């Protein structure tokens, strides 16, 4: 059993026509290019949340989400990991939306094959409603660091028992 690798997913999120909102997508793409995983890590690029995330995450042991969050000018470019309370948040109560917290809880109740570990790295952005197919220079220059931090998490997962070891190239 020890030879069975953990199934790991990197989920890059964002909208690639909305400026810095695409930061999570761009970081995930960079990570995919630079990380030699020996096939142990899958990548998915998403522009939507809601129920689709359940389909995407099902079957994986570990999922790393890369995304952007509106943070204001001072924290633009700051990279941090969401803590458990932020990740679980509150149920959205939205008329048009199902958020991550509901999805995690629902998967648990329905006894789906859902990740036993879900982590989210986010980068702060200060743009709202900007339509542009590129990142601002402030965010662009943080992408290597964003991808590097993501690679560290992936590597730590792969060093755990039953994991394949990934070879991290220079990012």
């Amino acid at each position: 059993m020890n030879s069975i690798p953990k199934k790991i997913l990197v989920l890059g999120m964002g909208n690639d026509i909305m400026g810095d909102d695409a930061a999570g997508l761009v970081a995930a793409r960079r990570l995919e290019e630079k990380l030699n995983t020996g096939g142990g890590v899958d990548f998915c690029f998403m522009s939507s949340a809601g129920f689709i995330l359940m389909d995407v995450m099902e079957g994986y042991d570990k999922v790393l989400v890369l995304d952007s969050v509106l943070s204001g000018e001072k924290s633009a470019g700051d990279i941090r990991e969401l803590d458990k309370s932020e990740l679980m948040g509150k149920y959205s109560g939205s008329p048009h939306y199902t958020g991550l917290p509901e999805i995690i809880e629902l998967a648990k109740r329905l006894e789906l094959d859902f990740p036993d570990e879900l982590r989210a790295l986010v980068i702060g952005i200060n743009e709202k409603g900007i339509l542009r197919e590129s990142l601002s220079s402030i965010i662009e220059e943080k992408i290597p660091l964003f991808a590097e931090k993501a690679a560290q998490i992936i590597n730590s997962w792969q060093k755990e028992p039953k994991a394949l070891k990934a070879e991290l190239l220079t990012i």
Partner: protein
Amino acid sequence: MENKIKEKFNDGMVKANDSYMKSRRVTIDPITRLEGHGKIDILLDEKGEVEKAYYQIPELRGFEIFCKGKPAEDMPQITSRICGVCPTAHHMAGTKALDSLYKIEPTSAAKKLRELIYSLFMLEDHALHVYVLGGPDFIVGPDAPKASRNILGVIEKVGLDTGKKVIAMRKRIRSLIAYLGGKVIHPVFGLPGGVSKGIDPADLQLFKDIAKEALEFSRFTLKVFNDIVLKNDEYLKLITSDTYTHHTYYMGLVDENNKVNFYDGKIRVVDPNGKEYIKFNTDKYLDHIAEHVEPWSYVKFCYLKQLGWKGFTDDSSTSVYAVAPLARLNASNGMATAEAQTAYDDYFKTLGGKPVHHTLANHWARVIEMIYAAERLNELVNDPEITSKDIRTIPVETPSVGIGVVEAPRGTLIHHYETDEKGIITKVNLIVATQNNSARIAMSVDKAAKGLIHGGKVNDGLLNMIEMAFRAYDPCNACATHSLPGTVPIEISIYDKSRKLIDKISR
């Protein structure tokens, strides 16, 4: 270009905000809107009765400018990024606009494949609303505790097995969309004159199996709705109550027999008495639809152009119309498939004949449309032409103007592109379903607030019942497509007679 967008945006914000401040003395934070918030401002009079309730919905601004200079062929992909909830609708409207732009007729097999993927999408999206988004209002209950008014509460009520069935069905449907479109969220399927991929005969059985399951699932959903909602007298009373009723016009696409069609046809409008007011080709939409601007909202309110703007009126003098499932059923003479027709007949018989003016009846109409989508899906997968390899006609004409219209889950969706002779976009106009519905949604929120809030008493249950008034339309608030960790808040602010904020609730 970015600076131009910013300047235009800021200029609009300043003007609109000034105007609003002068007339209403209530501040709307314009930034809030662009983050995807829904916003309701409730203004009370000196007796604590509702003087007026305003519903604000966000609008993605500058999109038309963003599209200028891009190749028209990119539009189905670009527009599908407007919304992470119903990208297939934008993709299909964009694809049809390209057919029109290049004056090209898709092959017969291509049209069937498009309708097939679109039926899958409508079914899946409607199911999501029934069980997850709008369903909790009835399945869990309109006055149930806030904590249980969500999918988890629905699962509690209908049982784990049903929950598993819903999730599994969605996944199966999405697997077929992915087969044809490559990506479920942003499909790459439609091309001018056809589609990019057909069905391999070796895979057809899978389509047939899932189509069969989808019909069973839709029948099951109708039964769930029947058992939980229609057999509950209190719920029926709520659905037909005056608080949730408006007498307006109704709009929807119909086929040559005036039956509901999601993918193609003419736009038919019936008046508040259910009589046909007008039926027109989709490329004539500008002759019949106009937009009204109010100082308190950035959203444009659509109305029937030839009648002129008559205000937010709720009687035979109105020029306001509705789209979405209730409107589609009202605007048609029936459904094109047998079981959906039976359900359609039951619907109007139970609710007092055509047209039905009860906003909450949208939920039932949505389930009937699921039956239609599933039946149509079965027809299509059993059509001998569905595995044809003749899936595209290559465009040869010089492009100029293209208009594409489909019925999105939440109503009529219009894409209009103009290009230079090389197919480069010079003008874009989109009228999305929620925009078509915006006047009636505003009326619904106002009427529900007036009907439910008295003596200044406001609580969570009442506010949820006000939200139900717009939730029934399944309005699309989240143009920015995602928000980690997953909240798209709605803020409800209540102001006293001196316009002092007395309560604010965020959801």
